[in-house]
């Protein structure tokens, strides 16, 4: 097993998720927090959070599928 490659690849995903979380917080602070109603802030915050989750899942699952298909091609 290429340990360094495995650790570096997954660590990059972790660091990317962390950076996106910080960016998400800044967006919440700059945009959502400007809304007057607390209920509206919560709905907008939750919607943005769900959007972030969906985008993150789509991006990483495509990356995993791409690598899996490369391995399928190599083995055939």
């Amino acid at each position: 097993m290429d340990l360094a490659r495995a650790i570096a690849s997954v660590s990059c995903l972790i660091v990317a998720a962390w950076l996106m979380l910080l960016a998400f917080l800044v967006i919440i602070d700059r945009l959502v927090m400007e809304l007057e109603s607390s209920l509206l802030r919560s709905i907008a915050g939750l919607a943005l959070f769900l959007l972030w989750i969906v985008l993150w899942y789509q991006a990483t699952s495509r990356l995993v599928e791409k690598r899996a298909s490369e391995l399928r091609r190599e083995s055939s």
Partner: protein
Amino acid sequence: MLRYLLVLIAGLSTSLATTPIVAKIAYKIGAVRPDVHKPGEPEIPTMGGIAITLGLAASSAASYILFAEYKHQIAILLATALVLAVIGAIDDIFVLRGIVKMALTVVAIAPILVAGYLYPAETGLWIRYRPPAPVVGRLRLTILYWLLLPLAIAGPANAVNMIDAFNGVMVSAALISLAALFSSSLVLGNELCLVLSTILIGPLLGFLPFNLYPSRVFAGDTGGLVVGGVLGAIAVLSKMEFVTMVALMPEILNAFYIVSSVKGLVEHRELKEKPTLMLSDYRLRASTNPRAPITLTRMLLLFGGEGGEGELITAILAVQAVSALLALVTSMLMI
């Protein structure tokens, strides 16, 4: 310093002394699981989490006396651990379905909610509570916080439990996360988090020698749920939600990928497609089936190639260490 050391020793010595006894009882009642990554698949006693819980009770009792100013939080932490230990023990003996286990672990938020209602000043759990966050200061998502709170225990409990696929991984990873929480508490001057983290560090250190590769005892669902749930309780009680979330990112991402890719909460025994394949020499290979669930182990194998259990343990703990460093940076961004 001496007080922390005494709390640590109370937890460590209790779990060190009780783990062999718990292992013997587990053998007798048939609470054993095959170690599928070893030749011959030896039967290993599970429910080692009971010893962790006993250690946690001892360190909680010690800290209740030594840190009386935090007695409410310490009592809540222990109550949460006991609820999860009961759920975990039932799961270890009867094997619950994933969705049932998740639903039961949501109940473990009850001690926090009840204590928050009865002692809002002592616990700091106000209705208008604003969680501290990096970069932006305090969030004003007060409604969202209370909507997500029921998952504060169930989420980490199940996520930490799901990463316990190899010998010693869950306990070692939790210790790395606790090291991050401990150092972040020093950065932020959060004494409560130091105390609550020390309560969990001792029992884990006492249990680790029995659980390290090659394991003589498994923590089982009891251990996974208790350790994860207590980490969640530490986060809520000491207002370290963001730091804990970052420290537990490998566990959270692993659980999130599994739940998303299989589109539901299922036990690993219920999975139709396995994420990894076992080779004849007991090394693992990532499944290339598009329908196989995405897990942390599968990703490591996809990017690093076939590997043995030892290599995978090293890789997972290295990723956990990266996450711990990010948690420390997160706490620095909260000053």
